[in-house]
């Protein structure tokens, strides 16, 4: 079924197009030899530098695992790599809910593949368990390192060593139905800029009655709320956990205020019930596509949105805002690294280096409408077409990726304490939030 955060349907993040930059960044590291450099040797040195940071492409067979939830975007990337390189990657897709089980079983017996991706929130757990090869120096040798979105690398860092790079990026935004806004007397070009305005707009649309509702959320899906509510707090400059993810702040006044907004909307019928209460995640995004929800959080993508019930021109987007304004997003998706069992690290690295390079980012990732990991490539020929796509990329810079060692078993587990807390806060007795938060703290301890 569903699971984790930051799953976009099909990434449809076109990057903003600008004039295409064609040349690769030249290596900036010093030449290898210490002797005075002649013209020729400088070029050779530069060439061998270029080769070194790219790893080896010598026709090796590589194995790779990825989650089913991101398969639609992962597969074209791997296919493009295979088409243009001598190395060949054999990609195995694993059912999302069982990914951790499979990785764990393989880890215990030394059977991990050369490359494997991970939901970013699982990276702290898996890097600290030593599942990945240390690629710090290789990452540092990338010429465009400072242009790569830092969130995924940061969350893949453990005790100063870096283990992963961005693979597929998911962001969360607020998506609203302009047609319903107009009908409700709202200005379709003035989306909400605070949580209060979100609430007011949702209520206005809900007044239209019938089968039209103001908003929707996946109330039986912990990962959904992580993806869509936490940015509200971040937009206000508040936090949901402490920096090393061992203490939960999800019972802070800020967060309680957020829960109250949604509880009020549940109680007065603005929220589509009982579906919101029973939605465990597999179909949470489908509700907006039916065309009778006013505004709700959504993955930052436009792919697959258009359908007989909803035309693309009626779709408005706006960044997730806080109680007092501000903007933020959840920088989710998958990071990818080289496993500690791999015997062909140089060749596996060749894939990673190519992945963050211009060719992959523009001609594969941007082309399929996904968010690019390289901020310098944010404007390219594929994003010129739609200003909404511009927004997706801009918002990525304001987002965060939370860090916690025990993230999965605390926040994603359908039997875990986060789901208990949020359901109590919104459907049950809010005075129990503090007690439920203690369970969260207990679960977060390393």
């Amino acid at each position, binding site marked *: 079924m569903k699971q984790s955060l930051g799953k976009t349907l099909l990434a449809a993040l076109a990057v903003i197009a600008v004039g295409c930059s064609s040349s690769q960044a030249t290596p900036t590291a010093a030449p290898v030899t210490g002797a005075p450099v002649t013209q020729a040797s400088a070029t050779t040195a530069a060439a061998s530098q270029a080769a070194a940071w790219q790893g080896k492409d010598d026709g090796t067979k590589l194995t790779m695992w990825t989650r089913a939830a991101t398969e639609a975007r992962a597969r074209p990337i791997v296919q493009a790599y295979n088409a243009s390189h001598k190395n060949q990657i054999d*990609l195995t897709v694993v059912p999302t809910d069982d990914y951790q089980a499979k990785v764990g079983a393989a880890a215990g017996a030394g059977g991990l593949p050369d490359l494997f991706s991970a939901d970013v929130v699982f990276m702290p757990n898996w890097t600290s368990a030593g599942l990945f090869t240390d690629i710090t120096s290789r990452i540092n040798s990338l010429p465009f390192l400072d242009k790569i979105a830092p969130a995924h690398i940061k969350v893949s860092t453990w005790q100063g060593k870096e283990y992963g790079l961005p693979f597929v990026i998911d962001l969360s935004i607020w998506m609203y139905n302009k047609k319903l806004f107009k009908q409700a007397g709202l200005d379709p070009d003035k989306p909400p800029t605070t949580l209060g305005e979100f609430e007011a707009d949702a209520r206005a649309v809900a007044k239209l009655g019938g089968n039209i509702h103001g908003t929707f959320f996946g109330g039986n899906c912990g990962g959904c709320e992580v993806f869509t509510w936490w940015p509200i707090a971040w937009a206000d400059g508040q936090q949901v956990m402490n920096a090393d993810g061992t203490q939960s702040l999800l019972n802070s006044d800020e967060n309680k205020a957020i829960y109250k907004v949604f509880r009020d909307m549940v109680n007065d019928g603005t929220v589509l019930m009982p579906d919101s209460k029973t939605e465990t995640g597999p179909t949470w995004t489908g509700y907006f596509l039916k065309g009778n929800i006013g505004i709700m959080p959504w993955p930052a993508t436009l792919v697959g949105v258009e359908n007989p019930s909803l035309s693309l021109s009626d779709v408005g987007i706006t960044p997730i805002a806080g109680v007092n304004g501000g903007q933020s997003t959840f920088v989710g998706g998958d990071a990818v690294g080289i496993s500690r069992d791999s015997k062909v690290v140089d060749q596996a690295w060749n894939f990673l280096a190519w992945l963050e390079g211009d060719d992959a980012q523009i001609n594969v990732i941007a082309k399929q409408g996904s968010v690019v990991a390289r901020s310098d490539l944010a404007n390219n020929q594929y994003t010129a077409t739609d200003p909404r796509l511009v927004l997706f990329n801009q918002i990525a810079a304001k987002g965060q990726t939370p860090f916690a060692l025990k993230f999965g078993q605390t926040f994603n587990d359908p039997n875990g304490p986060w789901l208990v807390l949020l359901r109590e806060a919104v459907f049950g007795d809010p005075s129990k939030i503090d007690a439920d938060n203690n369970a969260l703290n207990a679960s977060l301890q390393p």
Partner: protein
Amino acid sequence: MRSNGLTRTPYYVLTGGLAILFLFPLLWSAVASVSGQPGTAQASGYGFGNYSTLFNYGAGLGQYILNSTIVSVLTVGLTLSVSLLGGYAFAAFAFPGRDALFLLTLAILMVPYATLLIPLYVVLKDLGLQDSLVGLSLVLALFQLPFATFMMRISFEAVPRELEESALVDGCGSFGVLRRILLPAVRPGIITVGLFAFLAAWNDFIAPLILISDSTKQPLPLAIATLRQQTMGVIDYGATEAGVVVLAAPCLVAFLLLQRHYVRGFMSGAIKG
């Protein structure tokens, strides 16, 4: 047995209704797999759009069906050979440790499936059989052993003792007795065991999940599970139903064809009153 006192028509209506209740979900599944659903490859009307989604998924439906077939055949072969010899041993001979071994075999039923999988993964790796269809078949046959051995034992026990004794007296070795006399007599039991083993192997999902990594070696249930969890937020119901049909069809067909033997297999000897 005497009739149950009801006149015939209410009897037919009642039992017919019951039968329909049992068959309805299966029929619905088949219909749902070809009917129109917005958001699937078969957006409206009736047709095989969902099946084409299934067909083109991943390494191709044909490959997955082939894998499942290989695994099923291997599992059936392993289960039959081991349980046949074992059932014969338990039924026809007395030797020290017989009851203990039998109970140990039955005890396999009492351990949760998930519990043994990780240690089995380690054992298979030590045997060099990880990520192989052969290794997977060994594991699947293991979980068939309790039922299979039990069935074969009671099937052998149902054979009249005189048949066996006279064959032995005539100079047949025990293996000859087994082959020429007993095997034909326990045929229903064999078919029952084979059918059950096939159904279990064809439908199993968790064992291949843990034990198979190579994407081209995935059996069918695993592929369909991946298909279902593929994209977040929207489920392709149509493809899922098509998957259910493809998974269920061979089982139903095999079952219907072998039904006569299956029922007789249970009847043979079986539990004495």
